[in-house]
């Protein structure tokens, strides 16, 4: 293999599994260390820079970082990254001094943002400090988008939402509530230099089976949750069937329990291991004694004397056909008696306000064609982000889209091609403090993942707004932070001073190093003391070593960043260096060098 090019920030970035997996590349290990030091406000600001809503995300983030966390490969359970983020937000002090100053003198550019969800709010957050004038149109009387209208208050209290949204609004957004944009064409004739569409995917999918319109007790989840959130709905039947198996279904069933539902079932077509809901959302529902029924496909709503009495399902069995496609086979009919039904089978976009003759193209699925990097549509100057761009995703993706769209809008308004992207940079700094001392807590703590305490089942249903999760207590926080492996403390190697004494190879607690004759990647992977079978993780290959002409090889997969290799190295050929990813934002790009994309 050729020597690994560690000058490309991607190499070390990828080693920080959580940061690499986070759409917004939040510097997770850095903020966890700050929490460990009791520097909650600093930890909050590290978060805010990339993910903008630490308090919100510390509660409800989809947390793609956690399945990626190296700790999950080392001892099964990942670090409770999301819960720790909440600790930073809950204990954060005054930050007004640390927010960017908004120039009094504007730069003369006006940008219209459609929708007041997290995507639009991020664009505003990034452009206001540059002197842009931001006009935000929102159809509803409230900001926050689905975060407020759909994510139930028992998971995300309005106080937290308001706190973080107001930080942005207070930067000087010209907010127009109750102001739906009904014609993009018309908006484009007004004096805006750029337009951002952050309208989300606001429609719940319907289920057109017999009986659908013969009762008023069948609700579409997304709309129903919104009407609960805004106080228009405050009761439901005692026996509730929620059809679906995703996160919306989990919110619907748990909300039903708080509105009078006594016997609540979630009924899904797919088997348990294929449900779309995140593990923690499923656990949340199961903890509240919601019954999960799987392998049931809805066939008919049963209406007797104009009253909904149940739903007929086909119980099915799944198998793979010759082409490896999953198919279902009906076993029998099952009738589940109920008083109300909530449909939670998917979310759809609605672009009725976009005329089809304005040079903004749509694809076969009636979705706008949006560039994955620049977030620009086929009409110059119109950008998309969040659920409106590529269909329903989650908050953290909406935030990342917002950051990228802000860079594009800034480019566009300054006359720079939107494809001219500022590049990622990195900084590496040695953490050596003494012969055996490092500026981070390098010892491995074998403690298992801490569980977050919940409000008891007796108390939590008393009203709709009791937040169920209580957040970590101090004792849990101090332990959980030590589980982080500090993956940003990189093992950096200098081949020319290695004397091939093997000390590093021998001491490594997970046997991830070897000194060996060079070979092909596949073969080197097998020659490691513990074969490097996880191909998602890179192996590092050094320059040729001076004494024998062999190479140093490291499997990044389960390195616990204990620093022992560097500590046992007599020549300092290994060093533990803190890696900082410099992420470009519209407000400050770390490098003036800009990378052109095709």
């Amino acid at each position, binding site marked *: 293999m050729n020597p690994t090019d560690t000058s490309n920030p991607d190499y070390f970035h990828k080693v920080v599994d959580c940061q690499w997996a986070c759409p917004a590349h939040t510097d997770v290990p850095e903020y966890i260390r700050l929490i460990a030091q009791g520097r909650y406000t600093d930890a909050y600001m590290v978060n805010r820079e990339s993910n903008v809503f630490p308090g919100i995300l510390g509660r409800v983030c989809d947390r793609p970082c956690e399945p990626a966390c190296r700790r999950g490969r080392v001892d099964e359970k990942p670090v409770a990254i999301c819960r720790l983020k909440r600790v930073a937000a809950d204990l954060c002090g005054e930050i007004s001094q640390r927010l960017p100053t908004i120039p009094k003198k504007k730069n003369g550019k006006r940008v219209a943002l459609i929708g007041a969800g997290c995507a639009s709010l991020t664009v505003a957050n990034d452009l206001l400090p540059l002197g842009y004038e931001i006009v935000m149109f929102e159809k509803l009387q409230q900001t926050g988008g689905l975060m407020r209208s759909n994510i139930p208050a028992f998971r995300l209290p309005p106080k937290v939402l308001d706190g973080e949204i107001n930080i942005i609004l207070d930067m000087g957004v010209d907010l127009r509530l109750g102001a739906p944009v009904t014609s993009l064409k018309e908006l484009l004739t007004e004096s805006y230099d750029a337009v951002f569409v952050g309208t989300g995917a606001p429609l719940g999918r319907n289920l057109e089976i017999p009986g659908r319109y013969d009762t008023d007790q069948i609700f579409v989840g997304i709309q129903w949750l919104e009407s609960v959130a805004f106080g228009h709905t405050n009761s439901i039947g005692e026996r509730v069937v929620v059809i679906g198996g995703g996160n919306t279904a989990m919110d619907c069933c748990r909300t039903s329990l708080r509105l009078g539902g006594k016997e609540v079932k979630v009924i899904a077509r797919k088997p348990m291991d294929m449900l779309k809901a995140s593990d923690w959302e499923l656990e949340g529902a199961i903890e509240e004694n919601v019954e999960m029924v799987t392998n049931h496909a809805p066939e008919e709503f049963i209406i007797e004397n104009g009253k909904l009495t149940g739903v007929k399902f086909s119980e099915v069995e799944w198998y793979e056909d010759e082409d490896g496609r999953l198919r279902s086979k009906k076993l029998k009919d099952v009738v589940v008696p109920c008083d109300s039904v909530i449909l939670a089978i998917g979310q759809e976009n609605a672009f009725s306000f976009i005329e089809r003759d304005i040079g903004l193209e749509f694809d076969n699925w009636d979705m706008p064609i949006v560039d994955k990097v620049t977030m620009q549509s086929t009409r110059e100057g119109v950008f998309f982000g969040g659920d409106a761009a590529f269909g329903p995703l989650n908050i953290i993706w909406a935030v990342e889209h917002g950051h990228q769209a802000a860079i594009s809008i800034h480019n566009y308004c300054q006359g720079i091609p939107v494809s001219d992207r500022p590049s990622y940079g990195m900084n590496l700094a040695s953490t050596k403090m003494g012969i055996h001392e490092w500026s981070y807590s390098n010892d491995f703590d074998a403690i298992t993942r801490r569980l977050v305490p919940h409000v008891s089942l007796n108390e939590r249903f008393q009203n709709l707004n009791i937040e169920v999760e209580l957040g970590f207590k101090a004792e849990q926080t101090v332990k959980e932070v030590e589980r982080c492996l500090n993956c940003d403390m990189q093992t950096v190697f200098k081949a020319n001073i290695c004397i091939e004494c093997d000390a590093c190879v021998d001491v490594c607690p997970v*046997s991830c190093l070897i000194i060996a004759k060079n070979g092909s990647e596949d073969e080197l992977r097998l020659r490691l*003391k513990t074969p490097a079978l996880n191909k998602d993780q890179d192996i590092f290959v050094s320059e040729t070593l001076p*004494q024998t002409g062999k190479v140093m090889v490291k499997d990044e997969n*389960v390195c616990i960043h204990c620093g022992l290799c560097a500590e046992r190295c007599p020549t300092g050929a290994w060093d533990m260096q803190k890696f900082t990813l410099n992420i470009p934002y519209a407000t400050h790009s770390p490098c003036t060098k800009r990378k052109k994309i095709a």
Partner: protein
Amino acid sequence: MSYITKPKVAYAGLNKNKLGLTIRNYEGGMSTLCAGCGHDSITAALIQACFELNIPPERAAKMSGIGCSSKTPAYFLNAAHGINAVHGRMPAIATGANAANRNLYYIGVSGDGDSLSIGLGPFAHSIRRNLNMLYIIENNGVYGLTKGQFSASADMGSTTPKGQLNQQPPIDPVLLALSLGGSFVARSFSGDKEQLVPLIKAGLTHKGFALLDVISPCVTFNDHQGSTKSYAYTRAHSHETIHTDFIPHADEIKVEYDEGAVVPVQLHDGSQILLRKVDPDYNPKDPGDAISYIQHHHEKGEIVTGLLYLDDNARDLHAVANTTDQPLTELSYDKLCPGAKALEDVFEAYR
């Protein structure tokens, strides 16, 4: 030294041996030697060899004297027995232990100071007696523990870091062992595990005294330019004369070899050693030839390595002394100590 110990990470990727143990079950405490010391590498090779030989850790006894090298039994096989003897007296203690329990794997770890200066007498006699043990000399040419004075293995003309010359001729433990009738005589280098691990396995399996002289650079006091026991010097001057492949008796022997170039040796437990002659002129079955070959190469500045001499038929101490097959530790009390009457009978026989 290290402030943290090598953490026990419960992670499923590690291989298990036939006893269901991972290599981590063969480790010991955290090394307190200098970072980069050759001795640590030999420790790692011992751990690997015992793991691969499926030795139950509690069936091993670690013996050592005094020195950095003699500290190393603390760093492997935590669950094994061990005696840390006074300076130079490890062979005597090992002889006693071996006499009492012949069924353990005896692993002696000593230094060039411990074995060739103060302990030369006990060392020589343990070879003569063909004590059944693996005897490793971690040879760095200095007294590391006492801050780097030349030892008896330092070569003429090698210097201290500050440039003082060594003007006394060295004692070569390999030549010494050959001249004393050693039955297994080998030399290796701490920086070459591919050679070292099979030699340790062969030595542990050999019935009789297995001497393994391992050049083991002292990074702190003897790894400089004027040293003949540094990493760089050893790599530049070592000359592998015989390459050893160790084939455990459970494995079918499939290796094909050219009769003239390979000497196969069957060990008492059915394992096999293949001595592959890198130099066709070398004869690993003749101590006289071996001595002149090694001396000749030494004069040319070359360090000859490999399993240089092997005689698997030599009788070990127990065979010569005609002791009982059962370890003394397992004999019943009345057999072990038959009483005053029996002693009287012995005396009577000499009257």
